[in-house]
């Protein structure tokens, strides 16, 4: 099982080697074999006596992260979808992508995506699930931006990346919460502890995070906006990622966790609510589009909304219908995308306003399209699988557990109406898609190419999928008992009669279907008359302009904020730094109450000390208030020499000597620097700035004084200097304790300090001597 997931990743490593001879053999031929092998491996699990299989492979056992695979009916359904449609898409892409494209890159991304999708649906460990989840986001980003020389491709890729990664990170948050609460990283283990999670105080957050993850990935309202822009990807990618696999990862997630979450009525309200809104909005918007792939993108959104709504219902019937529709949608939507790709390939345009009357030129394609789009519309014909699942959807939307209260009851009563409205628009856009492309007048002059039927190889993949539509439509029980019912059982093991048949008798669902057919036909025929409604809703208030505005505003605001405090003025930075130090330190001092004053351990003041200190204070103040720079330097020297005298008074001869010389050198260097300084204009600061500076300076001085007093007043233990005094002669062989400490006891500091001096000297040398003049550079 691990091999089957790793196979695409390993194969991706070899693609760059194989793609070197793409001129002779199309790389896609090799790639097609890989999903085929996976498909064949997993198809052997199908059968009436299927039991879930669990495998564990060690990864990071110490952190509770092991590659834990759980193969049940739901995973099997998705695995077969991914590998099966993967095979068809890879085969289709052989004919779709010319060998002049970057085939190596394409197939590497494709295989990465497929492998991570397999990983998502097989994982039972939440962290492994998340890892594969982000891999799908990443590889789909690469695939959408495959033609990266186009601006729209890059825009679409970035948009999908931002939205799905936002959701992915939310998902991670929810998963971590659940792992912390239950103490296990296994999904099955979490489901067993359902009560613990449902009653936990973090449950609202868990639900929000999980739903955000699922809604963004599955393009639910209002996060659906990335999907239409992802249509810039090559059509095989759209067919694979954006109809059959990636967008269903969110559905998978909801289905996977729904045994745990259905206990909450919020789950019903949110999932069904957003699902049904997405259904209606997506189908409504699909009619507006003029691009074939955009129609299909909004159609995908609305179909996903429908499945999502059914997963939210949580009844046995609804779960069964949802699982069934996942399969059905993958078959007809995959083939429709391929049909759109063929039309694009053969006519050179996807704009439905320029297309029309293609039936005579592309008869086979048109046949495939009519079956797939009628199945999508849910036309009641016994060989269309879309009808069955739509019927089940209507059935589920009118059969709920009785006795609901409040919001749930209101929701339950309006759901059937919304379902019908959404389905009417679904019917309208399905018809619009087919008749707009293949019937009506043909206007050959507008088409960039003269259309003719696609090569056989290109038709194989959609034909297989359409064959699936028909086979499921004709013999639903063929896949139901060994396959679909297992998938439904793994979400919710109910005891309803899970049989699918075309004729139920004249009951409410059939009446709803007929109503959809009737209203849909009327609306589809009168479409040009009411098209104007799209100019009202959505006009400027579309979600795309909201997204663009948000992205733009984020940039402008962050630029504004950064420019607001980083204005390049060093004075301001110093003010900010010192101000922050003052506020933080004073607050900590106030909170901990650590300021102490003690009069113990103070020595008596002598007259010379007072005199020197006063002189230094006067000189310091003088430095500030003088207007003459040279004078300021010289007065500053007074402070330095005063310090040297203080060192003498406090019996530190080495310090005094060093201080004297260093002070002299510093003053000399200062004078040198200021002598050569250009005569700059004297900058007068505003009064506000001046008083601000004064406040900060006084505050910092007060802070430092308080720290000094506190430090002196609270000596925690004796100093170690007694040791130095005692052992200076015996250990170091010298009587000058300062020197012995410097060269012997703590010589390492000295080594590094003279290194600092050396670096400073070389830096100055480099600065002065090795500079390049502007005129030399030219």
């Amino acid at each position: 099982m691990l091999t089957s997931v790793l196979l695409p990743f390993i194969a991706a490593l070899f693609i760059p080697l194989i793609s070197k001879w793409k001129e002779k053999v199309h790389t896609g031929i090799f790639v097609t074999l890989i999903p085929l092998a996976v498909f064949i491996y997993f198809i052997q699990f199908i059968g009436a006596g299927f039991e879930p299989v669990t495998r564990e492979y060690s990864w990071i056992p110490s952190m509770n992260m092991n590659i834990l695979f759980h193969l049940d009916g739901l995973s099997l359904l998705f695995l077969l979808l991914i590998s099966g449609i993967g095979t068809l898409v890879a085969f289709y892409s052989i004919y779709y992508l010319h060998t002049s494209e970057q085939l190596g890159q394409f197939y590497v991304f494709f295989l990465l995506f497929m492998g991570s999708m397999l990983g998502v649906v097989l994982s039972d460990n939440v962290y492994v699930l998340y890892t594969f989840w982000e891999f799908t986001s990443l590889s789909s980003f690469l695939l959408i931006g495959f033609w990266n020389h186009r601006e729209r491709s890059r825009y679409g890729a970035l948009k999908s990346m931002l939205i799905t990664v936002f959701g992915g990170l939310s998902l991670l948050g929810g998963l971590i919460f659940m792992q912390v609460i239950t103490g296990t990283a296994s999904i099955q283990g979490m489901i067993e502890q359902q009560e613990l999670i449902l009653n936990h105080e973090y449950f609202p957050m868990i639900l929000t995070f999980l739903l955000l993850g699922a809604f963004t990935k599955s393009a639910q309202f209002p996060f659906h906006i990335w999907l239409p822009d992802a249509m810039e990807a090559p059509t095989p990618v759209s067919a694979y990622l954006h109809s059959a696999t990636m967008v269903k990862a969110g559905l998978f997630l909801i289905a996977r966790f729904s045994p745990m979450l259905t206990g909450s009525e919020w789950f019903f309200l949110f999932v069904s609510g957003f699902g049904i809104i997405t259904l209606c909005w997506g189908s409504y918007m699909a009619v507006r589009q003029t691009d074939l792939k955009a129609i299909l993108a909004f159609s995908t959104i609305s179909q996903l909304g429908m499945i999502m709504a059914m997963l939210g219902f949580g009844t046995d019937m609804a779960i069964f219908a949802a699982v069934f529709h996942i399969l059905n949608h993958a078959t007809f939507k995959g083939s429709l995308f391929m049909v759109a790709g063929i039309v694009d390939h053969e006519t050179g345009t996807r704009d439905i306003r320029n297309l029309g009357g293609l039936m005579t030129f592309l008869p086979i394609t048109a046949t495939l399209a009519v079956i797939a789009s009628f199945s999508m519309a849910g036309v009641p014909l016994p060989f269309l699988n879309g009808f069955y699942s739509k019927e089940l959807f209507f059935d589920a939307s009118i059969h709920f557990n009785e006795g609901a209260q409040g919001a749930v009851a209101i929701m339950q009563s309006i759901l059937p109406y919304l379902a019908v409205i959404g389905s009417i628009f679904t019917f309208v856009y399905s018809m619009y898609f087919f008749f707009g492309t293949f019937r009506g007048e043909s206007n050959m002059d507008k088409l960039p190419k003269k259309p003719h039927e696609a090569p056989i190889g290109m038709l194989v993949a959609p034909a297989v999928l359409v064959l699936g539509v028909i086979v499921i439509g004709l013999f639903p029980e063929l896949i139901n008992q060994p396959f679909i019912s297992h998938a439904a059982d793994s979400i919710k093991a109910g005891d309803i009669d899970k049989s699918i048949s075309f004729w139920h008798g004249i009951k409410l669902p059939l009446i709803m279907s007929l109503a959809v057919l009737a209203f849909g036909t009327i609306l589809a025929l009168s479409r040009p008359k009411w098209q104007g409604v799209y100019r009202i809703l959505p006009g400027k208030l579309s979600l795309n302009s909201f997204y663009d505005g948000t992205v733009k505003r984020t940039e402008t605001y962050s630029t504004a904020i950064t420019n607001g405090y980083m204005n390049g003025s060093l004075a301001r930075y110093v003010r900010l730094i010192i101000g922050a130090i003052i506020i933080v330190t004073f607050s900590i001092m106030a909170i901990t109450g650590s300021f102490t004053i003690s009069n113990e351990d103070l020595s008596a003041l002598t007259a010379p000390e007072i005199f020197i200190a006063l002189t230094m204070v006067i000189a310091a103040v003088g430095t500030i208030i003088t207007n003459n720079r040279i004078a300021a330097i010289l007065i500053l020297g007074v402070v330095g020499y005063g310090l040297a005298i203080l060192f003498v008074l406090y019996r530190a001869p080495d310090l005094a000597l060093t201080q004297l010389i260093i002070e002299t050198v510093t003053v000399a260097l200062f004078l040198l620097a200021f002598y050569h300084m250009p005569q700059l204009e004297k900058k007068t600061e505003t009064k506000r700035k001046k008083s601000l500076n004064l406040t900060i300076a006084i505050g910092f001085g007060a802070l430092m004084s308080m720290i000094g007093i506190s430090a002196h007043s609270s000596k925690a233990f004796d100093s170690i200097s007694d040791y130095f005094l005692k052992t200076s002669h015996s250990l170091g062989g010298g009587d000058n304790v300062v020197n012995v400490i410097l060269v012997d006891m703590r010589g390492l500091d000295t080594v590094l300090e003279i290194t600092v001096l050396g670096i400073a000297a070389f830096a100055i040398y480099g600065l002065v001597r090795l500079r390049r003049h502007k005129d030399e550079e030219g």
Partner: protein
Amino acid sequence: MTRTNDIILRTTTSLIAFILIGFSVYLFFSGHNNPGGGFIGGLMTAAAIILMNMAYGSEAMAKVLPVNFRFVVALGLAIAVLTGVGSFVFGQPFLSQTYAYFQLPILGKTELATALLFDLGVYLTVIGVTMTIILTIADDRG
């Protein structure tokens, strides 16, 4: 550029410079037991050289004292580090110092400490650093 006849400065310099050097050597050697040491000694020697530089000009000084002070920095750092590394030879931790008393021909009973070698490194570094900085800035015609 004509120079004024600064004979008094030059004459006194030739006297004072040697006193300064002598004093700096004293500071350096006495550092272990009295105030002083490599740092101040180095600064004082540098002061003497700067004084001569001021009196005679750097071109004359380059002839009298043909030393590249950047090498002096490197030399000083090398000596300081090597005395530290030297303690490895005796199986001691880095920068272990020791001392002993010796009977020397002229000085009699003298204390010789390895710390003095380390101090020599400090001394040379400080001279090199100070002279490099001052000469670099002084000779700058940019």
